[in-house]
């Protein structure tokens, strides 16, 4: 019997804004909508709190994909936060692409507090995409590696 011990499990960091997406993720949970355990959520007050440094750090530390979720454009709890986030991420993601981190490993998605199903579907799809791409080594900081 062949042991499939090398089955690749990606590390995915999801930044979720407190008002819409984090609540959407909670709703997915309340409705028992499955998505892979590879996704770990970090709560931020607003998508505009996500500093590009956090995303760089995640990739440096071995994340295989990073997704940022916020309120739908126009629905930001702080009125304009997600517009800033959208612009910043557009720039950051194109820079990451240039550095060799495939465009598919980064994503921005708008998920409202009522969209539990969308949250679960997005995460399922994102994990599938990243799993297909395989491990990300481009930005990995070897000094961070244990052993």
């Amino acid at each position, binding site marked *: 019997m062949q042991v499939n011990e090398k089955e690749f499990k990606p590390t995915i960091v999801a930044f979720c804004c407190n008002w819409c997406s984090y609540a959407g993720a909670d709703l997915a949970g309340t409705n028992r909508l499955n998505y892979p355990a590879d996704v770990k959520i*970090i709560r931020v007050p607003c998508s*505009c709190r996500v500093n*590009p440094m*956090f995303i760089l750090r995640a990739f440096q530390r071995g994340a295989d994909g990073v997704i940022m979720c916020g309120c739908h454009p126009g629905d930001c709890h702080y009125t304009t936060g997600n517009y800033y986030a959208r612009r910043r991420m557009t720039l950051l993601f194109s820079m990451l692409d240039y550095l060799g981190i495939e465009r598919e490993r980064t994503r921005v998605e708008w998920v409202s507090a009522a969209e539990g199903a969308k949250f679960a579907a997005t995460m399922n799809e994102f994990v599938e995409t990243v799993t297909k791409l395989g491990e990300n080594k481009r930005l990995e900081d070897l000094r961070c590696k244990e052993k």
Partner: protein
Amino acid sequence: MQRIGVFVCWCGSNIAATVDVEAVSEALKSEPGVVFSTNYQYMCSEAGQNMIKDAIKEHNLTGVVICSCSPRMHEATFRKTVQGAGINPYMVEIANIREQCSWIHKDKQTGTEKAIILGKAAIAKVHLNAPLTAGESPVVKRALVIGGGIAGIQTALDIAEAGFDVDIVETKPTIGGKMTQIDKTFPTLDCAACILTPKMVDCAQNEKIHIYSYSEVTAVKGFVGNFTVSIKKKARYVDTTKCTGCGVCTEKCPVKNVPNEFNLGMNNRRAIYIPFAQAVPKVATIDADYCNMLKNGKCGVCSKVCTAGAIDYKQQDEIIEEKYGAIVAATGFNPIKLDNFDEFAYSQSKDVITSLEFERLTNAAGPTSGQLLRPSDGKHPHTIVFVQCVGSRDTSGCGKPYCSKICCMYTAKHAMLTREKYPDTDVYVFYIDVRTPGKNFDEFYRRAVEDYNVHYIKGMVGKVAPRADGTLDVQASDLISNEQLHISADLVVLAAAIEPDKSARPLATMLTASMDTNDFFTEAHAKLRPVESPTAGVFLSGTCQGPKDIPETVSQASAAAAKVIGLLCKDKLTCNPCVAHSDEMLCNGCSSCEKVCPYGAITYSDKEFRMPDRTTAIRRVAAVNEAVCQGCGACTVACPSGAMDLKGFSNKQIMAEVDAICK
């Protein structure tokens, strides 16, 4: 180094069934700084909370990590708990191992592994937590109710009753809303006007209530306790302080062909009008789209006949600004447009009407003075077909996916009243399901079937075809007998789905209140906080939150009022201490943060700094007004020198979480 205590909750079996709580508390014990780790059945229970308090005292804990349900649920609870044991409430972090772990992962090993990682991230964060002190902000003791239907009226009356000032903003020339158009109300069949109009008059006479009719909210600034709202008073070309509501102008106006929206266009009104006899405020309004004087300067009849001299053709829209402590959204509903439902021939035949039109046809103040007559030829209909769920429970995309909730009951009412008044009429009701939960609702429906012999047929109407003889061929299937039916009807009444009023979406944007995919306002918690929006200080009343009948709307309106009163009773509110702050030593005064701040919370000033060589230098640095900052964090990312950081969600804290997750 912090001394951290970890508390893993089983949440009964909600967490414990798919997460090995013992293994989680054991694994987290070896994390740096953790001096105590345990698990318990219900951490939020009194026993659980006491366990936390005791552990804090016994082990001299400085930080607490709770692995439990979502922080949106119990963060406040646990903050209070640790405060009770003498540590700062902001030294608590929650690892969400229920909603975002145990409930979505069926495999126990997977769930346990993820729970451990989430716990580690929370521990890493709490290491960097610092005690925070919340500031205070004053409360403006005045409430705003947006929408003057039965929901808004009830909310305003209850708030005023408690002694607070309250303003109602209504877009129509009169308050009253949809209920004014309804004839009778289920299940008691009392007349809508008889129970509503006294409340409207109460509003007008209550000195605590101010009504801005024919007005809309155009901008909202500020936050809970201190909103600044711009209200546009649309020009009605009549001085409301002079108009006595005598109605002479509305009789003399020569423009007679304006569709009367109160009767849903089934008859006409004049260009100057009072919507209906019991309107509040009872003053005339000129419809600028039709008035000859306003369009081409020729006429002026109303001005000549007005003995009070109230007509003012030069009136302009006026925008005023008011301050409020709390805002209640009560924007209500509308029946959907039936453009997507050609099969029912609504646009082709005058004798296919909506249920709200049926209300007007049976109302004594309606276009037919209460006589049930066919709109096409004015004859009494002998066969009436009611079609339920037109656009409700419709997943095809043409209508709405939800149940509109009120249609089963009002159709039973229509059918019953028709049979009562005109026993010679045959009444058919086509339904998918009859839903009658509610006090005395099922009894009411059964009376329609059993005592009034209304023919209820389970099945869908496929097509309504107008015939040359003026009748309507209703083609339907009877799902129980499995037959195709052709009914020759004189009148077809469609129970159109209801949808939130179109003004709700832009209002939600102004209030930064969230909405669901159907444009109903989202409540802070579906079960436990049903009348509050997630945005502090914004409350929800009536159908803007979801389909409701009148009794439910009134209960929710009073509940919203109770919440508003609770807020306005306070002299000061505790602010969110998770706000931005600037490190003056790093700030270079570039203004990047000020530009992105949506609240104008950042100001600059020149400050004197002592340099290492004992000279002094004056530099321009940013400072955050903590009472105004709402803690979004936009400035922290915009700051190029890293001077701006957010308390409670600092760069270092989030980085630590990232590290813990990616390890």
